[in-house]
């Protein structure tokens, strides 16, 4: 079992004729993903790795029934690509493109609010449900089907953790990178809620980093509504304040968004926080053992009463 993507997912690739789009289309096809269409304006009628190319997403959806879009267009064109996917009625839009101006994403956020669409990213590696479907750029070789849901703001750090889980025999239901930008379509809390509902997910790994308050919001939600065990890791404990650490959203500003603060909030919610990535498989294995699980619940019940929820809009 999996969340968001699986065997029923039919993918349209926006920007399929570009270098990245074409390369990763090959990767998705090799993994077994049903890539049914590509879109590059002006290149309708072409084929890329035998996938038909259309001039518009609307046409691609009408002719192929695509129900998921993955975007590889340059940053300056990404906002338009997202709008096109949303307006074509695609329910899941995954934006890989990196370097999109924040103002463009503020506008996208206002537009998608209240609409029936889930945006993943931008500036993310996408998602993979091991054994059935990969949308984006995650390497298919490191995952293995199983019961652990992985959600992360990072790319390669996610691969590192997933690889360690796989080597420890802990397979995954779905792994998702939600993106390293200040504004992303899907946040930790959204993914936790999805994993909670998914019968195929029994434990969750949350990989956060400095900047923003998404991890703190996730901690509040876990206390209130997540009964499955969660193990967390936060990157950036040694990051100096005021400096952007690669990801546009990874910055400690005005003393807020520190790793220490995030770790404290998660621990207060009864969540084990790994000190190093290599501790994660052990903590997950322990959480999956029935006896240990009840102990974890006890800790969580003892944790302080949750503060009033500052949950964002539901989608």
């Amino acid at each position, binding site marked *: 079992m999996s969340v968001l993507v699986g065997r029923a997912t039919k993918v349209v690739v926006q920007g399929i004729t570009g270098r990245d789009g074409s390369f990763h289309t090959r990767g998705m096809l090799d993994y077994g993903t049903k890539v049914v269409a590509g879109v590059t304006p002006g290149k309708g009628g072409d084929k890329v790795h035998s996938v038909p190319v259309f001039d518009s997403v609307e046409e691609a959806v009408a002719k192929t029934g695509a129900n998921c879009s993955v975007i590889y267009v340059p940053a300056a064109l990404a906002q338009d690509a997202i709008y096109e996917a949303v307006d074509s009625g695609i329910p899941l839009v995954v934006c890989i493109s990196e*370097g999109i101006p924040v103002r463009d994403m503020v506008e996208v956020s206002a537009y998608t609010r209240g609409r029936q669409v889930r945006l993943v990213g931008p500036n993310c*590696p996408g998602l993979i449900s091991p054994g059935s479907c990969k949308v984006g750029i995650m390497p298919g070789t490191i995952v293995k089907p199983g019961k652990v849901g992985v959600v992360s703001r990072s790319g390669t750090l996610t691969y*590192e953790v997933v690889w360690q889980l796989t080597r420890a025999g802990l397979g995954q239901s779905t792994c998702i990178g939600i993106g390293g930008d200040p504004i992303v379509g899907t946040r930790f809390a959204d993914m936790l809620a999805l994993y909670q509902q998914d019968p195929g997910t029994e434990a969750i790994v949350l990989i956060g980093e400095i900047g923003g308050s998404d991890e703190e919001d996730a901690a509040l939600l876990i206390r209130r509504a997540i009964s499955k065990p969660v193990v967390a890791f936060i990157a950036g404990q*040694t990051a100096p304040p005021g400096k952007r650490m690669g990801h546009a959203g990874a910055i400690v500003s005005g003393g807020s968004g520190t790793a220490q603060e995030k770790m404290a909030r998660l621990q207060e919610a009864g969540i084990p926080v790994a000190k190093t990535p290599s501790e994660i498989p052990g903590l997950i294995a322990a959480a999956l053992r029935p006896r240990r699980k009840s102990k974890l619940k006890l800790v969580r019940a003892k944790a302080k009463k949750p503060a009033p929820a500052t949950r964002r809009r539901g989608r």
Partner: protein
Amino acid sequence: MNLHEYQSKGIFRAAGIPVPPGDVVSNVEDALAAAERFGYPVVVKAQVLVGGRGKAGGVKVVRGGEELSREAGRILGMELRGLKVNRVLITPSAEIAREYYAGIVLDRRNESPLLMVSPAGGIDIEEVARAGPEKILRIPIDGRGLPGYRARAAARFLDKDPAVQKRIVPILIRLVRAYHDQDASLAEINPLAVTKDGLVLALDAKIVLDDNALDRHPDLAAMRDLSAEDPGEIEARERGLSYVKLDGTIGCVVNGAGLAMATMDLIQFHGGKPANFLDIGGSSNPDKVEAAMHILTGDPRVRAVLFNIFGGITRCDDVARGLLLALDRLNVRIPIVIRLTGTNEKEAREILGERGLMALSDMDEAVRAVIARAAEAA
């Protein structure tokens, strides 16, 4: 990208926000000439990209030429929190009655800009938020910008005098517009001053621009002050790397920002001190690896370098080739520890093995090894 006060004031002035006149000078003669034109007293303000310039002695009111020569001479060339002062702003000293705060930032939780105003001006807004949150009025900004009625409410929150309120309203509307038009991630007036004759002026200004939007603002991109940056950070940007210098001894070259942060953390966890954050990105262009080594070997504090590569899209053999290229072209005298795993790991090991280099596959093991090598090299 952070802008200097004088650059930020230029943007505010162009947006129609009242800003006192000022000249940016880099020597005492020009400072004296500017002061003559404005008339004493004037304020000498160091133009460096750090906060707390006043407390650090970088801002001074002077009443005459002799005092100006002395103070401008002292401030020009001084080190302010590690940054050399190359320029000062000379501006007439205003007679202040009251000081307020007005600033706009990105509210990540609500995914929209947020205007904040406070009657407690002249101090850090974070301090106000801690000590007296009720002293801050927060106005979320949507696609409409700042509607007049909300600007009037904000002005009433700040000042009792209707004549002053009337002057504050257009300033707030223009501040919000400038933030939007320039793709800023922060635009701040602190203090927003009311003078003794009831005028309202932006006495200090701070703008931070969204790096991702600089492509559509070539005029703003040209304002970048290279003298204010670490040479390694400049080189990194030019070569397409993401690099932040720290003060430790263990250099690291990593693919991916999250893994790079986790690597720094792990170095500290095992008892070392990271010298930098460095992300060579998803591609595995050998030139980038060479550029990374060039930057790290240029930092005299670096005693050993750790390569931590998780091959996904990045191919380990490409990184290995880049490393050999760097070793051929650069005079590298410090130990290097390599950790590779993932795509084309085997090929990478063969390439490195031919040159007598060994790669580890476990991250913790590699971090412990590089700390040991750095200690031997010390």
